[in-house]
């Protein structure tokens, strides 16, 4: 089962990276969302998979029953989901603003820094 997940996660990453390699910030944005999901699934799988038994201690017991899901990765993923959502929101605003300022979402055209024809530093003393 983990192997199947591993393949799916690999695909998530591949798709995310493919999108992020694009020049368009909107595609990069989509890539970031996919990447977030990929990482979450990855965290989930690293903690090993168990079926359907949530990590909730049944009434009358002091510990989890055998076969319950691993709670720690879940806690971690909850954090990660929230943070990746923050990232998403922020990048969205940033893209929006860049589009308004520069009139493009093509990162290739955003090169005020390091323009191609900058003159060389002086060679004399």
């Amino acid at each position, binding site marked *: 089962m983990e192997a199947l997940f591993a393949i799916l996660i690999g695909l998530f990453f591949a798709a995310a990276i493919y999108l992020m390699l694009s020049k368009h910030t909107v595609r990069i944005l989509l890539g970031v969302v996919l990447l977030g999901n990929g990482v979450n699934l990855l965290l989930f799988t690293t903690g090993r998979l168990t079926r359907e038994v949530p990590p909730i201690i049944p009434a009358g017991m002091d510990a989890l029953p055998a076969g319950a899901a691993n709670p720690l990765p879940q806690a971690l993923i909850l954090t990660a989901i929230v943070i990746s959502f923050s990232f998403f929101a922020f990048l969205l605003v*940033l893209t929006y603003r860049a589009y308004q300022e520069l009139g493009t979402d093509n990162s290739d055209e955003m090169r005020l*820094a390091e323009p191609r024809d*900058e003159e060389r530093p002086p060679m004399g003393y």
Partner: protein
Amino acid sequence: MTAEILSLSLQLSMPEIILAVGALALLMIGVFSGDKSTSTVTGLAVALLLVAGLWLIFMPGEGEAYGGAFMLDPFARFMKVLALIGSIVAMVMSVGRAQSDQLDRFEFPVLLVLSTLGMMLLISANDLIALYLGLELMSLALYVIAAFNRDSIRSTEAGLKYFVLGALSSGMMLYGMSLVYGFTGNTGFDEIAGILSSEPRHMGLIFGMVFVLAGACFKISAVPFHMWTPDVYEGAPTPVTAFFAAGPKVAAMAILVRIVSEAFLPILADWRQIIVFVSIASMLLGSFAAIGQRNIKRLMAYSSIGHMGYALVGLAAGTETGVSGVVLYMTIYMIMTLGTFACIMAMRRKEGGNVENVDDLAGLSSTKPFMAIVLTALMFSMAGIPPLAGFFAKYFVFVAAIEAKLYALAVIGVLSSVVGAYYYLRIVKLMWFDEAQGEFARISGELRLVFGLSGLFVTAYVLFGGPIGTAANAAAKSFF
């Protein structure tokens, strides 16, 4: 969790709590009274950071808190105080430029405080999750302030680039953490170290470590994770760049030191190779690329890349001397950098308008002799020329590397510092030997104070640097 443990935890993390609660209060003030309260908010923010710093210096108490996720040891204390100083100075310097750089909004000081809070949490992180959180907290605020200038398109561009690459590195770091967790079943640094020293190491674990290190290297802008640095340094408003160059570097270096000397100490041989590679690449790129720069902020970016490489030389040693070298290096680096940025901010033409080209410094010795003297001292110090502080910084890390028998690293370091010295000297030459093209406007008091103090520090270090060295040594003892 009993009340006793909780109160201890609260006491240990009081500076962080002060900042967190304070930031919320500042936000309230800002929201309810608008942008006209910016100067009040800035003043309060500085006061807040000062209180946190004083608490750290004067209140005793050391140990773990919150079930081991938070650690306050001499190392953390030293680095936190350093980061706080960096933030305070950067914030004070921003006051004069707030108007012209469009930073006069109440969010700005609040974001700086929140970012500083992130740094403090990061420095104290003793657990992978706490590390991730601290790092994100710090970085998110940085992403925002990089893009803060409302008029500059460059600033937007800088923010976007920084964010996309930063998100990438956080992703990698998170991935690395999940691998480390997957192989050790633990997130606490001590527990990871315990497992690593008792079990045979696993390839996947090494990968996890590599990715975690990569995330930290991104934040200190070490090669090959440096790409954002020149663009962001140049694009962001200068006060923001000064802030970037100070506290966040200290915090990220602190966590890098803590991860490798605590969690990954049992696999020193593995991470040492990575650190050595990163260090060499950073030193070389920092030195070579800086020579060709005309914009002084870009130059500072490459210079900071190089400096991080030198600091990593000490880390590569993996010894107590090495870590105390890193601590000392970061201290001296931060003070030199802040002083230099104060000078850069003072580069303002009489006719108005900021200039940032190296050539604009020509003939400074005749127009602004005091600034020229200070900047000369700073440049010589950055070049590592004795008897200035920068030399001792380099000296201690190289000594540590040689003690650890990393000869090649030390030799490359020395060679690249020769190359590096060239561009600092070019600035000195410009200031003293070239004809002035125009005069700078009157320099504001706070900038004068900052670069004056910084200049005093680098020149007087040779006489009074002993206690700082001793403190750095004590900080390094936290790990060994």
